């Protein structure tokens, strides 16, 4: 399938989540993304969950998702031959994505300043916790670190308990999604100027840019914004139901009476409660009127019935719930993709329908699966490849399994 990025070649040296996620989106839209891995693979291959809880570098959930649609080449860039091959690959590339600690690639001769003369058109995208400059540039970070520094953690959780991280790795995904925008904007400009440049993406800055308006509360008014748990507003927050939790959202106020209808509790329609609106003093009283109905109904039913009444309720969806939801089924959001080791799984695709259908879901590569074909395409014949292999340029073994398509969007 011809995608909007078909013809764009990406050398993806990045590891873990943020950089690879940028590469995943590019691959799904048609780019030829060559994931260059160390001989023992991107360390994310060691993160589970795994099928049957059996660790396997080919079947970790993160790897399968983040490296969809890419080709995998193993190169030992600690060796001279490995570095020479990387340089040859960069000669064919439009984009380089990397996520090493600032200065690491420069120590091997692959810093932006070292490459820009030889490869003036190369868009060099660095995705790191703190960016390339500044006092924290050499600092180490995992998800919780940048999340804490950003201010997001301080405002999550109960006021009298410790700040709480959000579940999952949203800072990493978000930085990758931002890197995707920045990369495409760089390519857009390059099509006119013919010039590449260094794009410096920071996870910390991405997380900080999510503060909604709490930064403004300080900047505009000098206020320290506290944590408020699940919220102190009446009829607004996470409530238990028969099979989990629902999100009760009692706005807009003009629809208040519909909550009474939904929960079959006429007393709730009392104007006293409506006027209380989002104020908290009647919270316990209102909760007591809502809970009997909530805990006897299931989340999907509550959500559907509330929405039919124009109430913007949600529910705390687990993956099992997502697969049951009719809207996601209708839109064909999940694509079944087969993988030679992990088997068939349903993957999230992308979050939009494009009228021209630009997306294709493909599987993640086996470690080093494409080393042979990619190195051959650089003009190395079998003898040369054997020589490079013997010299340790590729590290581990190579495979030969063909890619299969998993759906389009």
């Amino acid at each position, binding site marked *: 399938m011809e995608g909007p990025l078909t013809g764009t070649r990406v050398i993806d040296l990045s590891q873990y989540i943020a950089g690879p996620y940028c590469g995943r989106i590019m691959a799904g839209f048609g780019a030829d993304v060559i994931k260059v891995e160390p001989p023992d693979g991107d360390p994310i291959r060691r993160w589970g*969950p795994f099928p049957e809880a059996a660790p396997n570098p080919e079947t970790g959930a993160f790897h399968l998702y983040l490296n969809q649609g890419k080709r995998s080449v193993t190169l030992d860039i600690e060796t001279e031959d490995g570095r020479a091959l990387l340089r040859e690959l960069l000669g064919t590339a439009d984009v380089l994505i990397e996520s090493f600690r600032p200065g690491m690639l420069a120590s091997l001769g692959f810093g932006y300043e070292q490459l820009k003369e030889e490869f003036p058109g190369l868009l060099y995208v660095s995705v790191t916790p703190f960016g390339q400059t500044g006092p924290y540039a050499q600092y180490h970070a995992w998800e919780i670190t940048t999340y804490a520094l950003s201010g997001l953690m301080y*405002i999550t959780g109960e006021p009298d308990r410790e700040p*709480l991280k959000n579940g999952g790795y949203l800072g990493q995904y978000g930085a990758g999604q931002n890197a995707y925008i920045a990369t495409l904007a760089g390519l857009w400009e390059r099509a006119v100027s013919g010039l590449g440049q260094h794009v410096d993406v920071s996870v910390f800055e991405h997380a900080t840019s999510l503060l909604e308006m709490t930064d403004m509360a300080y900047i505009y008014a000098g206020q320290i914004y506290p944590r408020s748990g699940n919220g102190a507003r009446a009829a607004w927050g996470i409530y238990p139901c028969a099979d989990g939790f629902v999100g009760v959202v009692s706005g807009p106020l003009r629809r208040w009476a519909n909550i009474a209808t939904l929960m079959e509790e006429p007393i709730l329609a009392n104007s006293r409660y409506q006027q209380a609106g989002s104020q908290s003093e009647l919270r316990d009283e209102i909760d007591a009127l809502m809970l009997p109905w909530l805990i006897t109904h299931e989340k999907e039913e509550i959500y559907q019935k509330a929405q039919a009444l124009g109430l913007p309720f949600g529910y705390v969806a687990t993956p099992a719930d997502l697969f049951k939801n009719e809207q996601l089924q209708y839109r064909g959001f999940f694509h079944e993709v087969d993988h030679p080791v992990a088997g068939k799984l349903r993957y999230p695709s992308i979050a939009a329908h494009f009228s021209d259908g630009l997306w294709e879901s493909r599987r993640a590569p086996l470690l080093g699966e494409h080393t042979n074909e990619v190195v051959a395409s650089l003009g190395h014949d079998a003898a040369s490849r054997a020589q490079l292999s013997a010299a340790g340029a590729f590290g581990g073994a190579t495979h030969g399994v063909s890619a299969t398509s998993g759906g389009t969007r």
Partner: protein
Amino acid sequence: MTVSGGSVPLRPGQRGPLTDLVVLDCSMVWAGPYATKLLGDLGATIIKVEANRQLDSVRGPAIPPSSSSAIGLYANNDPGKDPWNRNGYFNKYNRNKLGVCMNILMPEGRAVFMELAAIADVVVENFGGGVFERMGFGYDVIRGVNEDLIFVSMPPSGNGGPEAKYVGYGVAIEQLGGIVARTGYRGDDTPMKTGINYGDPIAGIHTAGYIMTALMHRRKTGRGQYIDLSQREATINWTAESVLGYQMAGQDPTWIGNRDDYMAPSGVYRCTGEDSWIALAVGSDAEWRGLCTAIARENLLTDYPTYERRAQHHDAIDAAIGAWTAQRAAADAMAIFQQHGVAAGICSDNRQVVHDPHLEARGFWPEVRHSTAGSHILAGEAWQYSRTQAAIYAAAPALGEHTDYVLREILGKSDEEIAKLHEAGVLENTPEAILQQRAQSGTA
């Protein structure tokens, strides 16, 4: 035949990789404006169209109640004479945008809107499913004046399908997208919302990237595109590994507080000072060595040498780390941990992050002067470019601040034509509620 992009004058300071693009922004609140903020910060010209009858809700009410609990969002704590121009929420997300205020439901207003749509590369709307279309501005209609347009809708669950008309706030989207099911204190029986309405920025960041994708497609094929985004699906994209993990394990994930599935220890530890904390996670044996050295507890190294051991004895390790941090200021503890290669960071509150030395050194908080709110800093973006450096060069528009500018400089209308549109009530820069108040008090 359309003339897209590159044909509008740039404003002082406007630069970045996208200066040849024009975006017509009909979105409100957070998700849509977040998307156009990203494109505007990359240099695109963003023309935000607003209505004086229904203000963007994050401008706040035209006449705030005297005991407004939202008072904290007004510049210098003062709603002033024009509170709708002084709200920090609106002013954060609408910098670098041109503001046009007009009634697009009046025929003359509709005509002006279509002229703008004709020169735009992109139109973005985030009304509820189908609302913009029912107002007469569907993709098929606008495409009639601009065949290669990129048109973006971003309702909660996408257009079409059984939930097309459902309404959704960010607080519900983060639940529906799988974030909340994994957020909460370990051992608690109820999960926890995040500190923000996560669904909105996730949708916004997705949308900006998809717009760029469609523009690349247009450059290749000459074809425009309709992008039908689902905020819920965008959120699921950021929780994807749990969706795959569920299929592998056959069971749903749960919340584990500040712990981590792949690292131990991982947590938040109290420091000296009120509500002061440091967060850290140990992702390798080398980091663990660094941590034990930093807190001078090398015995822990021999007691708990492996990840498995550390995960098993997490409580004991937490106690040891907490005893050390409790004697130290968070910033000092962070510096010591980082010197030992430990991924530690303080839990900044909103004041601390604004004064963070790293962000300051990177110029993350540029200052802009707003026409009535004064000079203030604003949060920047996650990326920097070495050559076509993007910029935050202009504050958010006061309501209708650029109406005349856009009609004159971009649409080429004469002063007479513009005056006529003002007289006809098509262009009106004062909120309807204020006009009514004036009419009632007889001071019109």
